């Protein structure tokens, strides 16, 4: 991939970024979108064909959050072989942290007009705020928590799992159990997170109304910026020597361990970073869609994230972003046009991608994935016959 002289020295950030063709394209698109889309929404008159309607702005913002989530999954699955089927949990926890801040911002404008307690607590006859809601009236605290809580959960969970060498499908199954347990827990009213209905009815963020076009454009730009930053961080990790160890762990874990590396620490590091990214994605997602409820913890959703990555191209980072956009656009399209067909399509996508496109859409583009310029059809044929013999 890279030549030896560069492998053991820190390349300047700009240096390796320029060599990352896909990344450069992604970052360029992100910068262009962050500038042009808000202009198209706010400044271009509605009659113009270049006008970007607000619903599209919100939709694109939502996709950007999903893209960030997919990026976080690709970082661990594509580069370290950790298939997490519970990443939706980190996303939802970040979302809940932001949701709690937004709930506190409602103040006395709720249905019950209680300045201290959110509506659902008044409804449950609670008299005072639970201790874990303290501090969420401050924006910075909510942002820190949106990263800290998922990170902490990932750290503890990862510490236990990686230390005792729970790998492969076992890890996938227990991550799924984790998000399932959280799903059940957040459905309970006693938890103090709004139970079944979750947190919703938000009014404003930092004093700006969530309904106004300006705030929405701001959130869109923030999503672009965070996706860009997280991409650079993720690329930086995978480019570094640490990243090489991660790839080695993915391909031959035992061999890396026998060489003297503490495999569990590498895994723990990247798993925690990935959870923090998922938390950020959740925190950006909630103000844009206006609701967070326990449904986000559903195991099925977490598995869906994995397919975004698989469709785009595992182990490329920008592929995950592309996959998130493709699958979610398809979802928006099909659930609007023919809702019955959506699950057939999604299910078919899972099967087709795993069987026929192991490198995803990106892998099918010769400039990125197929260096030997072999035709895709022949590689598929080869793959099928190889699988049959195994």
């Amino acid at each position: 991939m890279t030549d030896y002289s560069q492998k053991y020295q820190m390349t300047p950030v700009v240096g390796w970024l320029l060599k990352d063709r896909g990344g450069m394209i992604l970052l360029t698109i992100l910068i262009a979108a962050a500038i042009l889309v808000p202009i198209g929404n706010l400044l271009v008159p509605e009659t113009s064909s270049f006008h970007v309607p607000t619903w599209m702005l919100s939709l694109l913002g939502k996709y950007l959050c999903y893209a960030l989530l997919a990026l976080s999954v690709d970082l661990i699955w594509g580069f370290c072989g950790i298939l997490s089927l519970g990443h939706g949990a980190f996303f939802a926890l970040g979302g809940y942290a932001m949701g709690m801040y937004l709930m506190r911002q409602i103040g006395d404008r709720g249905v019950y007009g209680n300045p201290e307690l959110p509506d659902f607590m008044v409804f449950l006859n609670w008299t005072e705020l639970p201790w874990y809601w303290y501090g969420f009236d401050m924006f910075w605290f909510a942002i820190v928590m949106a990263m800290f809580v998922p990170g902490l959960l990932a750290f503890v969970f990862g510490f236990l799992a990686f230390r005792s060498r729970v790998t492969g499908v076992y890890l996938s199954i227990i991550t799924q159990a984790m998000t399932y347990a959280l799903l059940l827990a957040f459905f309970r009213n006693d938890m103090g997170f709004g139970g079944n209905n979750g947190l919703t009815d938000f009014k404003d963020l930092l004093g700006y109304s969530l309904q106004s076009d300006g705030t929405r454009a701001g959130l869109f730009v923030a999503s672009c910026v965070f996706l860009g930053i997280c991409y650079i961080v993720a690329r930086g990790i995978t480019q570094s020597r640490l990243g090489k160890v991660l790839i080695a762990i993915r391909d031959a874990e035992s061999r890396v361990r026998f060489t003297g590396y503490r495999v569990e620490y590498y895994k723990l590091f990247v798993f925690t970073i990935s959870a923090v990214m998922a938390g950020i994605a959740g925190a950006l997602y909630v103000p844009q869609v206006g609701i967070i409820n326990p449904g986000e913890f559903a195991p099925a959703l977490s598995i869906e994230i994995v397919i975004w990555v698989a469709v785009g191209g595992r182990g490329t980072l920008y592929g995950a972003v592309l996959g998130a956009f493709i699958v979610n656009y398809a979802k928006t399209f099909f659930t609007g046009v023919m809702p019955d067909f959506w699950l057939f399509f999604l299910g078919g996508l899972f099967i087709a991608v795993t069987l026929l496109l192991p490198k995803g859409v990106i892998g099918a583009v010769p400039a990125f994935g197929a260096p030997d310029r072999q035709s895709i059809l022949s590689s598929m044929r080869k793959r099928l016959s190889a699988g049959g013999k195994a």
Partner: protein
Amino acid sequence: MRNDMFSVLRRSPFSITQTRRFAVRICGMVACLMMFAVVSPNVAQAFSDEELRNIAEQLNDKSSTKQVAIIEEMAADGDPRVAPILKAMLEGDLYVRDSDEHVVIATKKGKVYTHIDIISGEEAGESSSKELDKIKVNNRLRGALRDALATLNLFSPDHAVRTAAVEQIMDARDPAMLPLLLRAIEREDDETLLARMNLARATMALAAGENAEERLAAIDVLASETTPQIRAVLSQFVASAEAEGIEPEVVTAAQDALDDVEGRLSNWQTLGDVYRGISLGSVLLLAAVGLAITFGVMGVINMAHGEMIMIGAYTTFVVQQILSSVLPSGSPWSLIIAVPAAFLVAGMIGVVIERCVIRFLYGRPLETLLATWGVSLVLQQATRTIFGATNQQVTAPDFMSGAIEFSTGLVLTYNRLWIILFSLIVVAGIACVLRYTAFGLQMRAVTQNRRMAGSVGIRTGYVDALTFGLGSGIAGIAGVALSQISNVSPNLGQTYIIDSFMVVVFGGVGNLWGTVLGAFSLGIVNKFLEPFAGAVLAKIFVLIALILFIQKRPKGLFALKGRAVEA
């Protein structure tokens, strides 16, 4: 005297003292039967015909105070013939006949009124309305009549009505009912009902007893029973005894009796928890056992496993529909027909999935997981398209409805008992197939060493397909059983998939007995946590415990030893 003999029959049918008292009980029963043989023909007739006619005629008194007194007098005697009279009076059907001044019940049929004699209960002529004087009823009388009728239910010839009346008295514990209850005890000839009546008498004696002996005797009677109701009676008595100035030795005895009853009840509670745990365990076992084959033996992560269960449940539904339209008399057999049908349908779909998808992915478990998840989505949506998203009604055959109820509050429903039995049969069947058939031998050979098995002539691909088919078919069979306790909807499989994986991982992959033990222990732990934590928290605790358990023993309770499983 008869009461005393019956006092030995008050025990709950399964209490510990049962055997000790058995001999006494038989003697008591024989003695009572002999006594009834002498007394019974006229046992319930308290009024003579003449008395009844005389007293009934006084119902037409002008003063309602007098009328109320008469009603109470009639009711207090407990004559079964009184109830229809009072009922007719309440409904305004009681008349005085002009011709002979007799009181009759008259109902309008067309233009004439048919008379019914109050003594014999038979038709006694008819007349027009002019010849009848209605006995008028006001609200005060209506109240008195309703009360009287309620107590008279104790003497109703209908067993169910009497039972309900006794239970009502047990709940109310009104000391004013005591004389009536005593009379009912004298006339009752049903053994179990008599036991209940004596118990009711004891609860009243405890509250209204005149001296310590009476109360102690009542406590003695109560202590022999084991129901939540008695616990409530005793604890209420103990709590209020101090304030009412009850003798200390009575209070001590009551406290002892209360401890006794509570101890026995908590044993029953534990027994109930174990039963419910086994019941849940059998459901988990059914859901997981197919997975134990596909995941455990083949190492294939089949996320579509839940959908195989769903397909089994829908097969049951279709079989029932077909059977009820083609051969309505055969519908009780539908479940039995559905078992092989579900096995074949789910098994065949399993084979198709294996041939079309999974065989290309052996050795790549994570990709298998994703592909089978895709299969599960397709199957779910296909079911939704064909059958609709709503729940389908699968009817339960007669042998599966109903329950065994114990007076201690434990209820064993037949459908759960059948499912427990069924799950054990299924596991035994699988164990036999693996152990004793040629296919089982080939399957184990392929699992242990694929290349070696291939080189001695086993068609490994063929065995793979059949093994996956077997696992799927068994999931289909599980669907037949689970259709009896879950909603048959396209989401049926989703509810079981995570639990199934938990069971298999907990029990140890590749080990059937691990799966059995895992399912039952998870079920029992879950049900023991539920009383303290509630159903949802219990489940969360179990999940967390499992996640921690896997850290400790990553290969489950019974890990296979050796290198074969590592590959």
